[in-house]
């Protein structure tokens, strides 16, 4: 059962063997949750987005093109579900403000002393300076280890666009990193 390729598992699920659906998603369960989490900054919302993405993945499994990257396909669905979620909540445009306010709240929170909270704060402070597209590309490429091709497939843009945004994101992160960490030394 474990020896099946992703294409074979897709066919098995379409043939009615539902147990393979979980096996198909299992390698990416952490990755897609973290993608959604990094964008929304809220774990519960990220889980809600993933739930919606899983439903879409199962519903449209028949449209998955055999031989293509299943990983890119499910990340693309997750990205779209994330955007849909943000659009529904009318938060897409206010995403930066949202991150800023959550940072302010986190600083005032006494739990800030705990290392986990502090870690989240650091990650958010690094990511908040990126545009949504830069953030997506940076997280896929540097966070999830996607290749340039996989990233461009998942986001539906050209590899040149991926390189440009990635370069910009790394430059911003480096500047922010120096500002936040080196300044404190």
């Amino acid at each position, binding site marked *: 059962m474990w020896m099946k390729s992703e294409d074979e598992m897709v066919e098995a699920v379409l043939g009615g063997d539902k147990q393979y659906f979980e096996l198909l998603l299992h390698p990416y369960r952490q990755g897609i949750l973290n993608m959604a989490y990094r964008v929304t900054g809220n774990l519960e919302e990220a889980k809600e987005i993933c739930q919606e993405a899983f439903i879409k993945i199962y519903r449209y499994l028949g449209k998955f093109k055999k031989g293509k990257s299943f990983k890119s396909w499910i990340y693309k669905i997750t990205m779209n579900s994330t955007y849909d979620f943000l659009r529904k909540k009318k938060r897409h445009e206010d995403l930066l403000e949202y991150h800023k306010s959550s940072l302010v709240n986190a600083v005032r929170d006494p739990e800030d002393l705990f290392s986990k909270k502090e870690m989240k704060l650091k990650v958010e402070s690094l990511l908040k300076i990126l545009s949504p597209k830069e953030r997506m590309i940076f997280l896929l490429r540097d966070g999830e280890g996607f290749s340039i091709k996989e990233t461009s497939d998942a986001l539906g843009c050209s590899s040149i666009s991926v390189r440009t945004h990635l370069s910009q994101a*790394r430059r911003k992160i480096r500047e922010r990193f120096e500002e936040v960490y080196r300044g404190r030394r």
Partner: protein
Amino acid sequence: MSCYKVQRLLPLMLGSELSRRKIQAINAHLKKCSKCKQEYDSYVLSFERTRKLLRKNRQDWQEWEWQRAVKNALKEEPSRVYPLAPWPYKKAWAYVVMAVFTVVLALFIVRPSFIWEERESESEMISEIKKPPSGQQDIISMTIVSKETGIKIVWFFNKNFDLKEKK
């Protein structure tokens, strides 16, 4: 390679996104230019620490939440594949119908000569013209047989070409 160009390409040096030729040129430049080397080291440091932060800050599902999410997704039936989906999902019957339709449409538009000429030959009514034997110039008969209906028409002409029809 100039410092300006090297500094533009430095972010892409981190994840091997450049060609080998460019990487060699940049490395050669970094050996000579301490300012660019310092900037490159700063990129490497920020890159590694950011990745470390992302790794440490990774979230995961609780097992029961994961099982519930997968179970909820399986409640709906997967959508049926539409007929024009790529092979091997396409429906054979849809393509047979499309092929037949295309051939008929092509025949209607192109009208190949072997069909239309044959129909024209079928429409010819005159199959035989009997000429009277020599020496009897006063009466001439002509028989016309239709291949479509089988009707046979015999025309008789006298020497003045007055028609006497007999069916």
